[in-house]
């Protein structure tokens, strides 16, 4: 059963890349390709392991990143220097095309944010339907002339109606979403691990087939790995992943990460 959650979390490979670049707080014009590629691939891999549906665009981008990475390792043949005119220093950077795409995409991603806030702002205003003015109309048959409206006009009218939120008696109850926090799930996972002598099959950590639960569990595992409270191991490629608790010796120094 493929989950599209993941794909929707990032709008596409460009969105994911922007996210990784922002996370590293690096200059978009000087992307450390090796590092970004590694993170990108790790992300795709985890998604595969979770059997989340990875759209083909993500894989195409992975290939592109690998090509750029290898080009970066080549000596720069194409560097042409015209010493008389420093403006003419021409160096083809294998990253150029990608950077340009990222910048172009980022522009519209930001514009989408603007639209989002305009949408919210507009949502604060309520309008009313046109009044029924039949009492003011003369009894005459409307002529069957050119109405000059299109299907879009009809659709737009309908959307307007839907938007003009229907008002009714105040509701007292609101449905609240049952949320499991990552923290809670982390504690649960550590508990589960202790019950099975500290080691379990990764897949066994996902007993509930709900998207929420899977996503939260996955992130809880990531966080636990980051905090070095658990370790993940895989015997062979494509083999099952096992998760085990890292036992901390009594009195061990936990200061500093390295």
């Amino acid at each position, binding site marked *: 059963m493929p989950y599209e959650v993941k794909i929707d979390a*990032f709008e596409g490979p460009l969105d994911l890349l922007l996210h990784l670049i922002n*996370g590293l707080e690096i200059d978009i014009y000087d992307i450390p390709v090796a590092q970004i590629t590694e993170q990108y691939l790790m992300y795709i891999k985890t998604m595969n392991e979770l059997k989340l549906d990875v759209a083909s665009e993500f894989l195409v981008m992975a290939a592109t990143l690998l090509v750029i990475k290898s080009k970066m390792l080549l000596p720069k043949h194409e560097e042409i220097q015209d010493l008389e005119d420093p403006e003419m220093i021409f160096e083809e950077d294998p990253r150029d095309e990608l950077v340009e795409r990222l910048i172009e995409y980022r522009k519209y991603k930001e514009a989408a944010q603007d639209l989002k806030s305009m949408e919210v702002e507009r949502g604060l205003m309520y309008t009313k339907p*046109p009044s029924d003015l039949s009492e003011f109309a003369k009894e005459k048959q409307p002529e069957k002339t050119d109405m000059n*409206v299109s299907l879009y006009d009809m659709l737009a009218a309908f959307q307007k109606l839907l938007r003009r939120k229907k008002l009714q008696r105040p509701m007292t109850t609101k449905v609240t979403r049952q949320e499991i926090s990552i923290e809670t799930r982390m504690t649960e996972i550590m508990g589960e691990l202790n019950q099975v002598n500290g080691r379990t099959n990764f897949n066994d950590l996902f007993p509930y087939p709900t998207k929420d639960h899977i996503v939260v569990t996955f992130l809880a595992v990531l966080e636990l790995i980051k905090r070095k409270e658990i370790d993940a191991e895989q015997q062979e490629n494509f083999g099952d992943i096992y998760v085990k608790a890292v036992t901390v010796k009594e009195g061990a120094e936990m200061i500093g990460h390295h």
Partner: protein
Amino acid sequence: MDIINWNSILESLLFAAGDEGLSLKQVAEVLEVNELKAYEIIEDLKKDYDSDNKRGIMMVQLAGTYQLATKKENASYLKKLVDSPHTSTLSQAALETLAIIAYKQPITRAEIEEIRGVKTERPLHTLMAKALIKEVGRAEGTGRAYLYGTTKEFLDYFGLKSIEELPQLPEKAEDEFIQEEADLFFEKFNETINS
């Protein structure tokens, strides 16, 4: 000292409620005051409308609800608005009604009015006169109200081969669900990554 601007809030509420109006009880509930206070606020706004001749709206009490309506003395201008040549194309009211019929046919006038929240006699009249809709039968039960549906002219006019060719309405519920899930994931993912 009243810091809350009751007049302004009540006017907003009545304006948005349109022809459906609001009962005293509803006003009290939304404003979170008792009914006596709600009544005072209503009377206060009503007096404002009546005493200020720069206002073109007034408050009326109809079928147990309070509603806003245009002042009678401006009726001649409303008549001109109805007759204005610019309103000769299909009005928003007519288009809305047409869309509801197209997507929900066969449907009665009462059902259309339930959806729109306003009287729909005139738009139905216009649409019938333009041959875009017709009576297609009678509903079961008491009253045996007319059922409306679209016509062949409707399809011709909008260049549709059949009614199935109408653009699909977005599955609102589904869209929202996916978006919520995505938001949740993204939020959690960020929490983890950035922590």
